[in-house]
């Protein structure tokens, strides 16, 4: 992979070991705090402003993240893909993480995941269910749907995951270079998991704590959206099945 940066851009990398990709869509009230915490830990944050209509962009700039702004809204999958490409183009980070902008993830968990990936893994995925279920509070309906989804997506992949839809992930630069998300909406999560758990990669999970605040709950996707995701996946699979 092209690891050398253009000379003029080299100072931007800030020689950070980890680049954090953060999709941002109308999160002006919280995003600066989330970014600052990560920047203070010595990471470079790539905030992908997904066509926000509030003043998220100013908040991102103030907090000291690298801002990439979509001219139109592309959805979370589109933002993640842009972030992965930006991280490779603008930084020389060895590890690339994804992190939610609404403050539901803990920087401490990410630090733990960085320690874990250094033990020789390619992919470390955050899981809410690894730790005996206890740490993350959620409704039984959400829990059940997530568990069923996890079972469905586990079929056919070699790695058994306990949590299919967690936004906290950490991959090596080499793995990030291989990611090419086609779904731009929310179905990207399962598509991403499919890429990340494909065979020669060494994949592991790390227990994380997700904080469902009033804010993140109001921003979170309604459960009905799982129908959209499922339909997207099915039609995408029919379209691409056994296609070269």
């Amino acid at each position, binding site marked *: 992979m092209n690891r050398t940066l253009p000379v003029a851009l080299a100072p931007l990398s800030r020689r950070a070991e980890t680049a954090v990709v953060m999709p941002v869509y109308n999160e002006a009230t919280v995003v600066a705090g989330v970014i600052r915490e990560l920047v203070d830990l010595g990471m470079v944050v790539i905030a992908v402003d997904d066509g926000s209509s509030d003043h998220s962009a100013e908040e991102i700039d103030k907090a000291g993240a690298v801002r990439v702004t979509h001219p139109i809204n592309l959805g979370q999958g589109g933002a993640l893909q842009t972030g992965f490409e930006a991280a490779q183009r603008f930084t020389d980070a060895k590890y690339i993480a994804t992190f939610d902008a609404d403050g539901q993830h803990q920087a401490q968990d990410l630090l733990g995941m960085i320690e874990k990936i250094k033990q020789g893994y390619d992919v470390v995925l955050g899981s809410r269910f690894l730790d005996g279920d206890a740490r993350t509070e959620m409704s039984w309906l959400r829990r059940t749907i997530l568990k069923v989804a996890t079972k469905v997506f586990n079929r056919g992949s070699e790695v058994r995951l306990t949590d299919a839809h967690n936004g906290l992930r950490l991959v090596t630069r080499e793995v990030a270079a291989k990611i090419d998300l086609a779904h*731009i909406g929310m179905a990207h999560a399962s598509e991403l998991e499919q890429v990340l758990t494909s065979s020669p990669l060494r994949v592991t999970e790390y227990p994380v704590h997700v904080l469902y605040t009033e804010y993140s709950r109001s921003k979170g996707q309604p459960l009905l959206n799982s129908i959209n995701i499922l339909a997207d996946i099915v039609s995408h699979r029919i379209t691409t099945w056994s296609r070269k």
Partner: protein
Amino acid sequence: MIIQFLLVPAVVLAVVLSLRSRNSVRGQARRKLIAGLTVVAGVLSVLFPGVLQSLADWSGVTRGTDLLLYVLAVVIIYLVGSVSVRFREQEARMTRLARQVALGEAEARLRADVVEATVLPADLSKDSRAS
């Protein structure tokens, strides 16, 4: 009833084939062929209503108009599916375009920042030269 053996596979085929139709010359030609055939069949069924009725009798449908309805339903399923595939491809293209715009704009802004930093006589410039 022959119609049941014809319609069920036809619906399944319409869904699968349409979702797998590519936005290629072949796919476009197929869509146009189907549209053309629908028009021809429509005209023929107007000119010779008896043909439609005898086809209906053969396949076990009571009325010729019912048969027409079934065939139209299958055609619509196919067209909706293939249009949605086309729409998705269009969307993917637009996504790539927007992404390149975003990355290009960010790079230009970052370069401008670097130039500013190196021009400044502050210790910032030393830092950027060192790397």
